């Protein structure tokens, strides 16, 4: 399913992570005898799809796969049942139940193996002890896979609920894992000489990293370091970008349909098979893989959506032109054409067809009145227009009982762009929301407040930040962008602006702006091991000093596709001071961020 070739073309060979993950997985599977059934923590099936296809698993005797659920496991005739889960206490109850019910059932004696990803948890084992199933497991092991490559320049930990954990529950586990992932990166690509960061989470990760480095003093770090700078960004520093609506092609696909580990599910009826064969209409959603291995996608994914249409027509013309070449060819050239060129044309046509359909689906949404009204509201807020009173559009949405997540996103945006809401306004929104959607949503509002997305008016920082960091830009060229603000048609993602300014002219010039942002500012140097040298040192075997620098930007708490697009834009500039590789705890968007902080409650019913 996934070819990994495209992973090898970036500045960092991210395919290493995939290969390693695969290897570790195989080792795990081969440690158990006989046929296996894997019971998956559902949030892991997606990420693992990036690493191992089902056919690959079948080769290693995986006969069945089930999602982890309460109750009894579906019947299976295997030798071993392997549970593959994140080390979460809540999941242990399910695991215990599965095991107990399976044992009760009698029949064939199965072996049970428990595998945590990436590391085990004493607390989890304790729960299993309490439920008296710990002894039933013949093995309790872990699969130390922390980073998965989503692309040649994009790595993700796919750590669920990371932001919630550290912002809301003060649980630093996600940050600890991030530090370990960074250590792994350094063990592969060398000690990174310069570490910068902003935010409380950034500082924590830095501290953990130092500790871990001390622990691993004898480890062999590569002598050549390939990454020049590490930039750690705590999500709390920029809570505007994730709640605003992304306007890049990939960003919109994520907003509208949701991209999970490079796959997206789209309504089937739009994608009828061209050859008129029987359509697999089992589901009303068809799954597609989106990756930069597809040339057209790599070209349009980071463009502003308004530039996608023209790009698609250009591609259509190009394909036509290529196809027309067949008329002016000799017989021998024709043979080559049919053998080599025609298949690529066919693939390009399919790709064009796919993305034309997707773009049409997106356009239905972006042309709608509700979308345009919401966008206008967002732009007004980002330009600090009228943000200190109840916004009529928000009130209208509440009156219509629109989707709560959408409403909350707008209120959080208002809070960020107004440097917090006046207490009276907060109370008014709160009453309105609770009376319209139900009182139980007080929990969600409370969470948003504690996480910093909704706050009462504090220091007025937004207007100064907007000015000093040029967050809003008036003349945006969506077709041929000159600035990262094209990603939101007029708003430059704050986080990426910080990265941009770090590279040139450097953070010392914007220390005033940095002081307005929450959390400490980090600017540290890491001493390299004695034998190390930067790969750009002169030397016959070293790379030329002209090679651009490489910065690894780590988003702690989640990154959006728009931010990735913005960083790629910066890398592609002619006079770019540095190129970027991006890592994050998870890919997020406004909906997933708000959902992660929402408490899902079923209203009580019945007598």
């Amino acid at each position, binding site marked *: 399913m996934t070819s990994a070739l495209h992973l090898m073309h970036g500045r960092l060979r991210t395919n290493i992570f995939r290969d390693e993950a695969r290897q570790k997985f195989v080792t795990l599977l081969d440690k158990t005898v006989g046929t296996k059934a894997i019971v998956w923590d559902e949030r892991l099936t997606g990420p693992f799809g990036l690493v191992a296809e089902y056919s690959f698993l079948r080769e290693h005797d995986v006969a069945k796969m089930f999602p982890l659920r309460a109750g009894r496991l579906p019947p299976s005739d295997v030798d071993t049942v392997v549970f593959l889960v994140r080390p979460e206490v809540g999941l242990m109850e399910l695991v215990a139940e599965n095991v107990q019910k399976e044992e009760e059932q009698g029949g064939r004696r199965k072996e049970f193996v428990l595998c945590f990803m990436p590391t085990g948890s004493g607390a989890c084992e304790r729960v299993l002890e309490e439920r008296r199933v710990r002894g039933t497991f013949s093995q309790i092991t872990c699969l130390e896979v922390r980073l998965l490559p989503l692309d040649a320049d994009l790595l993700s930990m796919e750590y669920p609920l990371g932001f919630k954990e550290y912002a809301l529950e003060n649980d630093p586990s996600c940050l600890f894992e991030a530090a370990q992932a960074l250590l792994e990166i350094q063990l592969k690509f060398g000690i990174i000489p310069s570490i910068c960061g902003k935010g409380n989470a950034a500082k924590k990760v830095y501290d953990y990293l130092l500790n871990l480095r001390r622990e691993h003093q004898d480890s062999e770090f590569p002598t050549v370091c390939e990454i020049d700078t590490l930039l750690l960004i705590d999500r709390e520093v920029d809570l505007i970008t994730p709640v605003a609506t992304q306007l890049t092609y990939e960003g919109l696909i994520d907003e509208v349909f949701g991209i999970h580990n490079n796959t997206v599910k789209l309504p089937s009826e739009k994608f009828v098979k061209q050859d008129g064969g029987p359509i697999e209409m089992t589901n009303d959603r068809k799954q597609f893989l989106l990756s930069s291995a597809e040339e057209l996608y790599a070209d349009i994914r980071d463009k502003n959506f308004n530039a996608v249409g023209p790009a698609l027509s250009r591609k259509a013309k190009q394909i036509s032109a290529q196809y027309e070449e067949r008329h002016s060819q000799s017989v021998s050239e024709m043979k080559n054409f049919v053998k080599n060129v025609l298949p690529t044309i066919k693939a390009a046509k399919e790709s064009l067809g796919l993305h034309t359909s997707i773009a049409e689906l997106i356009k239905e949404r972006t042309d709608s009145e509700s979308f345009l009204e919401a966008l206008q509201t967002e732009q007004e807020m980002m330009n600090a227009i009228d943000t200190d009173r109840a916004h009529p559009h928000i009130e209208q949405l509440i009156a219509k009982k629109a989707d709560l997540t959408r409403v909350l996103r707008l209120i959080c945006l208002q809070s960020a762009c107004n440097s917090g809401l006046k207490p009276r306004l907060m*109370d008014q929104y709160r009453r309105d929301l609770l*009376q319209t959607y139900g*009182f139980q949503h007080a929990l969600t509002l409370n969470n948003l407040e504690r996480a910093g997305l909704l706050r009462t008016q504090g220091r007025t920082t937004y207007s100064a930040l907007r000015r000093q960091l040029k967050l809003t830009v008036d003349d945006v060229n969506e077709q041929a962008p000159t600035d990262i603000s094209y990603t939101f048609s007029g708003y430059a993602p704050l986080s990426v602006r910080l990265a941009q300014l770090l590279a040139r002219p450097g953070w010392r010039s914007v220390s005033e702006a940095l002081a307005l942002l929450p959390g400490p500012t980090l600017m540290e140097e890491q001493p390299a091991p004695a034998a190390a040298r930067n790969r750009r040192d002169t030397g016959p075997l070293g790379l030329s000093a002209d090679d651009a620098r490489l910065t690894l930007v780590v988003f702690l708490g989640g990154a959006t596709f728009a931010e990735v697009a913005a960083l790629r834009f910066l890398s592609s500039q002619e006079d770019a001071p540095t190129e970027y590789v991006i890592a994050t705890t998870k890919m997020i968007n406004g909906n997933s961020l708000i959902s992660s902080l929402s408490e899902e409650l079923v209203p009580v*019913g019945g007598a």
Partner: protein
Amino acid sequence: MMTSKNKKRDLFMGDEYWNESSRKVTPFDFDDDTDTDTFMTMLAAEVAFLRRRLAEAREVAPPPADTARRLALGEPCTLELYRPLAEKRQLLAETVALGDGDAVLVVVLFLKRTLKRSLFVAELRRQPVACEQYLAYLRARFSHADAADLLAMLGRVEEAAMVRYESAVRVRGGVEPQLRGLRHCLQAHLAPDPELALHTGLVRQQIDLLERQRPVEAADAPARPDLQLVGRSVLSTLHYCCLHHYSEPANHLASPAALRERHQLTERQYTWTALRARASLQAWADVQALFTSKAWFSSGKLRPVVPFEAAAEVLESFGATLETLSLYIASIDGTEKRLEHAKKFGCYKIVVDGYLSQKDRVSLEQYRATLKPHSEAHQYASDALRATVIPIC
């Protein structure tokens, strides 16, 4: 009977081993397979020796930093050796510094087991990270009561109230347990604290709402068996009451007025909900009443409690006639806006009359062009156009 044949072995074997006279001690050769039995015997002996060593080791605790590291790395270690409070405190501090949340939790649970409650809470107070970790653990295990108590003891009253609230709304098994939980939350955490007045008010509203919904649902169930009123939001409940109990007197539980009073709904909230409910029943008169001032000497002019165009949209969606819609559109303040919306809703009379009063023939002609030929609207516009021709004397 110690033989000094093999110095290395002496270091491993204890007295227990040597006192077993049945043991045959011979040097063994790893290349010789028949020595497997001997090898097994040696292993057994070594195990026995190590057991003794362990028993001895139990009395001395390794430095807390070491244990913390072992915990973080997942290596086996025993915490029971840390008996004095100072050692436990240090162990916790070391573990927190390392950052592994899970290791922190293991130590916290150990402290909970081995410390008096007040001391345990004091230690948590000193280590906020550990405290949060523990609280999250309690919530993940749905031990809301413990979490709330701990938070209360730490003086974090608002959070304690929230946790109690959460456990109340998460309870399953119907309304009664939820009401109990809410009342408990109210009495124990919210009411006593004036700072939490906002939350207190909201929880009171929630309780009152549930207590209102229950009997209304029960009373209406025979007529509407699928009714699910309990658990709905205030406005959703109001919608229901406006549909089925619109004219009830204010002392009736299901009276919209009573609901409005109790939950202090704004005029806009009330009107918007009532509008949608009555419009769905095509009770146009009721809708009009909502926009009419109740004062004795009012002119009967409509007030835009809800913007007229929004109201018109709702009315249209429920099939209101052009005449009904026109009533609202005509009341829109500002000619531009009024004409714009009139066009949108097809209230041709208003458009035509508007252009007529402005003596704007051009716009009127343009508008007529958009109308269907031979329709009433077209005729009306034509008539108006004719009327604007000024007779030349």
